[in-house]
C-alpha cells in the first residue's frame, strides 16, 4: 500500500507530483493485447535521452529480461499503469517483447521443459 493513484478529483496527498493518468496520456489499456503481467521485456540499444524520467526509470530496469509485474513491483506502479507504460515504450521502440504468456494452449514442448526445470530444482 505504498501510494494511492490520484483520480484527479480529490485533494488528498497523492505522494507523487504527476498524476498517473497524465503519464500514460489517458490510455487505460495497452494497445498490444499480448501484454500480460508475466510478459518479458528488455531494453533495446537506443538513445533514451528524450525519454521522460518516469519512462526512463522503466527502461533502466530492463537491462535484463524482466516481467511487467516485476517492473510494477520494483517501481511501485499499479499493474495497469505499468502495463500501459511498457506498451508505450514497446510501441516507440525502446523495449523488445518476449513471447507472450497468454498463449491459448501451452504447448507440450514448453510444458516438458518446465517439468524438467522443476525436477532439477
Amino acid at each position, binding site marked *: 500500500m*505504498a501510494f494511492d493513484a490520484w483520480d484527479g478529483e480529490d485533494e488528498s496527498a497523492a505522494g507523487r507530483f504527476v498524476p498517473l493518468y497524465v503519464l500514460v496520456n489517458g490510455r487505460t489499456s495497452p494497445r498490444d493485447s499480448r501484454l*500480460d*503481467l*508475466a510478459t518479458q521485456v528488455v531494453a533495446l540499444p537506443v538513445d533514451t535521452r528524450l525519454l521522460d524520467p518516469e519512462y526512463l526509470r522503466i527502461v533502466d530496469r530492463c537491462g535484463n529480461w524482466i516481467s511487467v*509485474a516485476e517492473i510494477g*513491483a520494483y517501481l511501485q506502479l499499479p499493474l495497469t499503469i505499468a502495463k500501459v507504460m511498457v506498451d508505450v515504450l514497446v510501441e516507440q521502440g525502446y523495449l523488445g517483447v518476449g513471447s507472450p504468456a497468454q498463449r491459448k494452449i*501451452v504447448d507440450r514442448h514448453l510444458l516438458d*521443459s518446465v517439468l524438467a526445470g*522443476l525436477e532439477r530444482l
Partner: protein
Amino acid sequence: MERTSVKIVVAGGFGTGKTTLVGSVSEIPPLTTEEVLTEASVGVDDTTGVEGKTHTTVALDFGRITISPDVVLYLFGTPGQDRFWFIWDELAQGAVGAIVLVDTRRLESSFPAVDYFERRGVPFVAAVNRFFGECAYTEDEIRSALELTPEVPLVWCDARDRGSSKLALIALVRHALGRLSPARA
C-alpha cells in the same frame, strides 16, 4: 531473441498459505504488485452513505523460477478477496494451471477456487497444506467436500517446505501435460 514466460496460479481461500508456498520455491523473495481498482462501492464495501467511486488496492504476491535461459516461470498468488474475479481471469489466462491450496480447518474456503478453475477448464491440483497439523479428514472426504472430479490430483504438502511445494508444482505440470494428450481430444 525469444524469451518465454509461463504462469502458474496459486489459489485457495484466505490464509491457506499461498504466499508461503510462493516464497518457499521462488528464487527471489516474493514481490508484491498492486492493482488499483475503481469500482462502485454500493453494496460491496461497507461505506454506508458514501456514494460513487472508491479506490481499492488489490495486492498480488508473486515469485519467479528460472527454468532455463529462455523460460521463466512465474507463480502468482490470487488476491485474498474472492470478489476480484477479473484479476483471476488475467492470472488464469494462458496459465499452465493452478494449485488450489486447501486448509483442512476450513475446507469450504477453497471451494470458490475449485469452482472457478473447474468452470474455465483450467488444469489444477488440490494441495492440502499440512502446515495446520493432523488432518482429520481422509482424501475421500476432502474430495467430496470440494466436489473434486476424479481426474483432479490431490496432493499433500507443507507450503513452508521447498521440496514439498516443488512436488505440488510438478504434480500440476504432469496433470497439465496429461490433459494435452491426444487420447483426451
